[in-house]
């Protein structure tokens, strides 16, 4: 098993961990108390978007576990998917660093650092898979 396959396996596991973390997040960030202040439709859209994003991340993990070979093949659907997942996680890095509330990040420094490392690893791994054939 080459390094890229191992990294993809690790990426799949990290994404499962992110999915699981999303079950802990609503309590930690006080979703229910906070969202009680807005109109019901806004609250509902928030929860629907959150669930759909969790579903997408779970899909990434499933595709990575089931089709690591295709993702690293460097052509067709596998290459497109690897590139799309790379862009997804790459966009998430500046959001974490520059957009999210810095005071909250400072209060959870370890979690924040782990998240940034995980995001960078995911972007790099899928980026490498997308470019695999070019190397």
């Amino acid at each position, binding site marked *: 098993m080459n390094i890229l396959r191992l990294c993809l396996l690790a990426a799949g596991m990290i994404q499962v961990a992110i999915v699981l973390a999303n079950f802990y997040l609503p309590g930690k960030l006080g979703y229910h108390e906070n969202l009680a202040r807005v109109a019901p439709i*806004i609250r509902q859209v928030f929860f*629907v*978007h959150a669930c759909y994003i969790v579903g997408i991340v779970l899909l990434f993990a*499933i595709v990575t576990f089931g089709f690591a070979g*295709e993702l690293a093949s460097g052509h067709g659907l596998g290459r*497109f998917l690897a590139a*799309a997942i790379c862009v997804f996680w790459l966009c998430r890095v500046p959001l974490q660093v520059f957009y999210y509330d810095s005071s909250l990040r400072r209060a959870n420094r370890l979690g924040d650092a782990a998240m940034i490392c995980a995001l960078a690893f995911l972007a790099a791994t899928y980026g490498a898979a997308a470019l695999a054939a070019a190397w």
Partner: protein
Amino acid sequence: MDGLVSIALWLAGIGHFCVLIASVQVPRQLHWKTDLAKLEPFNRKLMWTYGGFTVYTIIAFGVMTLVLHNEMLRGERAAMVLALFIGVYWLLRIVVDFTYYSHEDWPKGRQFVIGHALLTMLFAFLSASYFTVVIWNVWIGRGR
């Protein structure tokens, strides 16, 4: 039948970009700016992030369907998993619409009722198209 499935896939790819036309209007029509100001900054930013990533996902589905049209039609295994996922994704969106969203909070007016109906029909078409691709390739067209 291959021709019909192919046309449905082209239309489904384009359909994703039609969904985006409605999506970009949501923040203004539902007054996100004023309503989300009541949230703590982190939750407000989370809402915009979720929205942005949802738009990205829809763009990716549309581009993938148009660019990798032949791979999807050929019924490659990974393509079928994705087609099944996208079919479920849009089917659940209809279920959410009917069972979870409070329709009395939607913007009032005939154009919104028509827009909502058209959007729901588009979701149904998207879901049906991807399920058809899976059923056609996995069961019906297996012997081709």
